[in-house]
């Protein structure tokens, strides 16, 4: 019976490549507690956005219940979620499907 050797090298390579693909969405969700000015300020600080862009996303969060802030690789998406959560915003990352 032939011995089947798992293709570990290729699996790890594809996993690592998948982590670099911009397939993850960083989402900020609405809550009734965070101040609108605060949310705008955090978006400006974390993403280095100009105020109009930050306000646009803040309004999406407020009016639509959520806003997709960026589409990034796994590592970068995790980084941004951590940055947003440091400010106590309700942020998560979701796979873009």
């Amino acid at each position, binding site marked *: 019976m032939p011995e089947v050797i798992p293709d570990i090298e290729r699996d790890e390579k594809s996993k690592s490549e998948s982590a670099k693909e911009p397939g993850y969405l960083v989402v900020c969700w609405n809550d*009734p507690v965070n101040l609108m000015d*605060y949310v705008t300020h955090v978006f400006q600080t974390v993403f280095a956005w100009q105020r109009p862009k930050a306000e646009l996303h803040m309004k999406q969060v407020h009016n639509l219940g959520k806003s997709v802030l960026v589409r990034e690789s796994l590592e970068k998406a995790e980084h941004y979620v951590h940055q947003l959560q440091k400010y106590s915003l309700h942020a998560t990352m979701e796979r873009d499907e």
Partner: protein
Amino acid sequence: MKLLRVENDRFFFQLIPREKDLLEIVLRLYPVIPPTHQVLSKSSTADKANQHLLDEALAEQRSENKKRVEDLLTNPGRFRKSGDAIEMILMASEIEWVLQVLNDVHVGNWVLIGSPEQRPRFSPISKHARFIVAMDLACMFESQLLEAISLSS
């Protein structure tokens, strides 16, 4: 608390003594948000290891901010008497973590009273009274800091 001036990346605020006491009380409440409150993903995108890493990073952040609060409040150079008022000096680089601390107290107390959709009305006999007071005080100082940032830019 009002912004007096900004000089060389230093923000000078004026507080009346009672405000300074309240700011100190609010800052010392930190951290309030329960450690397991934040999740990395709503779906199954994040595995347990990634969630664990996030929990660890946030715990480290909380510990660092708690130390910063203590350093700020015990540094005599940061609060000085000026007539009947108190002058507080914050470096521009410190504003961000002070905002993080204040918002943690703001959001954390909201979580403790059950994350209501409507802002609860204050009643001194409510079992939530102290949480609502803390939430509102943190929110007030947060607004004043945001206004200061806006004025200085």
